[in-house]
């Protein structure tokens, strides 16, 4: 069960059970939708950016524990960060989960996002963890196309 404990760490299960920032922001400056068409996971992300700082961020949607926890951890991490900082977290997060089983995690940059490091050993679940980040990227870059990890 060691591997499964790596994937479903207590902090992941906690964020899945009680997701933070699970809310719609009515007057958000940026919004985007993301879907994993093969899984049926979907997420809508609301971001309020002032200057280049993410003042508020919320999400709604449904999906597996990994996608829900990832969205919850992401929103609580990027709040108060600049959009550039958020994009660089996305790159670090992506490298951690999609870099193969031996990918090193930049724990200093990632902080509690490192709780999802176990995903790298479950290739079928990488897109679950990445979906909220792709959606955030789409929201910040103003893409009209729904985000997808396919």
């Amino acid at each position, binding site marked *: *069960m060691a591997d*499964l404990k790596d*994937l*479903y760490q207590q902090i992941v299960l906690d964020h899945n059970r009680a997701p933070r920032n699970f809310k719609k922001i009515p007057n958000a400056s940026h919004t985007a939708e993301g879907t994993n068409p093969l899984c*049926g*996971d979907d997420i809508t992300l609301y971001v309020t950016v002032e200057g280049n700082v993410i003042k508020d961020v919320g999400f709604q949607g449904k*999906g*597996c524990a*990994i996608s829900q926890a990832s969205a919850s951890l992401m929103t609580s991490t990027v709040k108060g960060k600049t959009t550039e900082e958020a994009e660089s977290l996305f790159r670090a997060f992506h490298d951690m989960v999609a870099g193969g089983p031996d990918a090193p995690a930049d724990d200093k940059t990632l902080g509690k996002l490192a709780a999802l490091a176990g995903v790298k050993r479950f290739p079928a*679940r990488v897109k679950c963890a990445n979906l909220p980040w792709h959606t955030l990227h789409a929201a910040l870059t103003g893409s009209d196309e729904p985000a997808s990890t396919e």
Partner: protein
Amino acid sequence: MTMVRQASAAATAARTAAQPMLDVERVRTDFPLLMQHRDGKPLVYLDNAATTQKPQVVVDSVKQYYEGYNANIHRGVYKLSQQATDAYEAARVKLQRFVNAAQPHEIIFLRGVTEAVNLVAHSFGRTSLVAGDEVVISAMEHHSNIVPWQIVCEATRARLRIVPMTDEGELELDEFEGLISAKTKLVALVHVSNSLGTINPIKEMVAIAHGHNVPVLVDGAQATPHMAVDVQDLDCDFYALSGHKMFGPTGIGILYGKAELLNAMPPYQGGGEMIRSVCFDKTTYAPLPAKFEAGTPNIAGAIGLGAAVDYLNGMSWDAIHAHEDDLLRYATESLETIPGLHVLGTAKEKASVASFVLDGVHAHDIGTIVDKEGVAIRTGHHCTQPVMERLGVPATARASFAFYNTREEVDALVRAVHRVHEVFS
């Protein structure tokens, strides 16, 4: 299943008394992949509705073709080509007998059900549909029997009508008849639902459609691994199957069509093999079945599918039904003992598919956790998003059984699902 259950009570009783038992342990030795262990645990393969495992005789038949008589068919005057042609055409006759078609040229080899539906949608659909016409499909179709019709309906400005389904996962037959009108040009129905296991009353539905002179296409992908199919008895106009769902290779399947309809339809793809003569002014087409088999076909696949049919012919459908019905009943009862678990799809006539959800846990998490126990099941929408929408769930976990599965494997699944609760507690 259908055939057994429709028999009279007396006949059923007589059959039960003499019912051949399936020697599952012996049957399993025919399937090399089932002997595997993963992470030290025996592989428990319960994703048969996605694809089935292949018996050694199927693997060997493909290997023998490539090693012994690989040549292109129908064109060569040399012996090797004749040998390959004979094997390919012999496979067609095997498939003809398997579905009891009247003539071998009513069997078109193609990639599988997806290509078969696209063939009928484009060849029959585009030439018979005009603005305002209607195509009737059901609420439990696989995307492969929805999207081709949407594409053709959009191009012709025809309309798609949907036969609704009950909470139990049965089609509403009263509604079905009401949907058919003078505007209806075709009915396209799934024989057995891949996500719920429901066996639809196809013969009855064909009779209703024919009462209005409307032809019927049947998606038989999930039926042919579980039951004998007789297209003349069903009286359907088109019937499609996929080889890999019935213990044959991937990339091969058939479209059965009544000769009269197929003859009247234009070609679906142009190319080699499907012509009588080509000149720049006018090309004339070959007769059936070549008209619909443009290009070099999947020769090895057709031979392998023929071997799968031979393999199934060596078994007893009655024994398969008895075994699979027992597995389904046992799996349903065992799964329902797990707290918070709900089996979806409780039709009276069901093939051996158990789709389920677990309160508070997404299907993907179930799939990952049971995989660690060596149990392979499918999770997601199973290419039936409208079914998920209808039942109000984003996804399900689905265990689908073949005749080579055992009660012990059901036990392994149930133990593995209990682990889900442990992880999420």
